[in-house]
């Protein structure tokens, strides 16, 4: 058993992958708490997909070199999040329709750009489903720095984000800069998307934001506890998922997301508070 746990750790790529997975699991889950409470899951999913053309362009410009992709992802994500925010506020069509149009259009643009490259299929699948075992030390440092900034902002503006999410009118009567805080939260989600891209990829990203936070929501009734618990579930899902990936030869991103999903289903069914199977 002990050996079973230790063996993967002798590979540096596994160590880096685990570190990245834990970081992304924590940051995604903590920010995801607000995504879940404010009903922004579709926005998060759309945002992740919208990053693709930016990353594809960066990939093309740098001639297949992966080192700069983080910055391309970060730039596109922040621009897209603020863009979606502005459009959904001003458009005459409904918010989710506007998001849907932009998200599919940008995603198609990304696929179009990548399809001009010869190694199309392999490269595309890395972007779509992540490549956590290909994380470099440099990636890891960037993930830690930007993930750290996001967590710091969650901590600093805890009472503001809490108040704004629960009662926007109160936030306005307390003269909080509501528009600025909303945009800051969108930008924080964007940064989270950028740092998670390599771990789970564009297509599965929304699971890192939503699944651990939703699991924690079922288990606790205080925001800070929900954040802590979500972070723990997110980090554990990454670790367990990577071990499954190592031994069962499953794609790493999929293994992480499946683990998080299994935890959610188990809690949903068995939760002592309101689990479906405990109700009767």
């Amino acid at each position: 058993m002990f050996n079973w746990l230790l063996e993967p750790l002798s590979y540096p790529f596994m160590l880096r992958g685990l570190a990245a997975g834990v970081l992304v699991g924590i940051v995604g889950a903590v920010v995801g708490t607000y995504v879940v409470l404010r009903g922004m899951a579709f926005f998060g999913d759309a945002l992740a997909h919208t990053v693709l053309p930016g990353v594809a362009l960066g990939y093309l410009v740098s001639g297949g070199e992966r080192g700069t992709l983080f910055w391309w992802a970060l730039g596109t994500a922040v621009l897209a999040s603020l863009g979606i925010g502005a459009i959904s506020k001003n458009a005459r069509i409904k918010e989710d329709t506007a998001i849907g149009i932009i998200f599919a259009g940008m995603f198609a643009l990304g696929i179009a750009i990548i399809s001009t490259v010869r190694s199309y299929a392999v490269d595309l699948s890395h972007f779509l489903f992540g490549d956590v075992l290909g994380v470099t030390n440099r990636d890891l440092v960037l993930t830690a720095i930007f993930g750290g900034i996001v967590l710091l902002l969650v901590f600093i503006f805890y009472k503001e984000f809490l108040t704004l999410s629960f009662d926007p009118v109160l936030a306005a009567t307390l003269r909080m800069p509501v528009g600025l805080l909303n945009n800051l939260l969108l930008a924080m989600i964007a940064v989270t998307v950028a740092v998670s891209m390599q771990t789970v990829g564009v297509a599965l990203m929304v699971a890192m934001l939503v699944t651990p936070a939703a699991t924690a929501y079922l288990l606790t009734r205080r925001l800070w506890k929900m954040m802590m618990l979500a972070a723990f579930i997110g980090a554990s899902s990454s670790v367990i998922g990577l071990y499954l990936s190592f031994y069962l030869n499953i794609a790493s991103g999929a293994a992480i997301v499946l683990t998080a999903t299994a935890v959610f289903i188990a809690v949903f069914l068995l939760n002592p508070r309101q689990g479906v199977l405990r109700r009767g």
Partner: protein
Amino acid sequence: MYPHSHHQTDEPILDVRNLSVRYDGRAALDDVTFHLHAGERVAVVGPNGAGKSTLFKVVAGVLTPTSGTVTVSGSRPAAHVCIGYVPQRSHVDWNFPVSVADVVMMGRSAVMGAFRWPTKRDWDFVQNALDTVEIRDLAKRQISELSGGQQQRMFIARALAQQAELMLMDEPLTGLDLPAQEGILNLLDKLQQQHVTVMVATHDLDQAEKYFDRVMLLNHKLLGFGASQEVLKPERLIQAYGNRMRLVDANGNLMTLDDSCCGEEEHEHV
């Protein structure tokens, strides 16, 4: 973030002049002018969609009027953090993961200031506010575990923690049973002792008459504002409610009113 304006005590606490709000050309409020003095208790009555919520949101400084001015203690509402807005209970996500004390603490945000966490003083404030509304023992409950009356008390406590001097309550009695309604109405006496000025939107003309210093009759325009016996006259009520109401002549001149009401209040874009 979090401005603190000086109050000019010789000014009325609330001065509204020629206030109009239009949505897509339709007038929600039309040329409304009135003022309130500190410590007054006013009921705002009128049919659904009369602009009561709109009026409150403009006074709270959350909604910008199309024309006219609103002045709170000598300056514009957006310069104040002492205006407490008590929301309609149906507009609240009761499954949000917060305790009663958490919600009341939100009211302290402005007093605390940015980048600060609650101190002992802030928790004392929260405890005192919960004492005043008599739900101290529920401080640690999740908010979905409260009854309707307790939910309303929690929001009043939040406005107290905010040190609100002007409290705007949007339909606080709607959907409460009679004992709970009386509890809230009695609480208004305590607020008056603390010199809090209170505006309450209500559907119940009897309560408006019994428990409030002045009554404001609103249907986009201000149709009357003053002592209840002057404002709640049949001809004015018909002007406000049109054929949406039944006048019942019970015990001489007491009137009750059926406003086919109590569903959603008007929907505004904020």
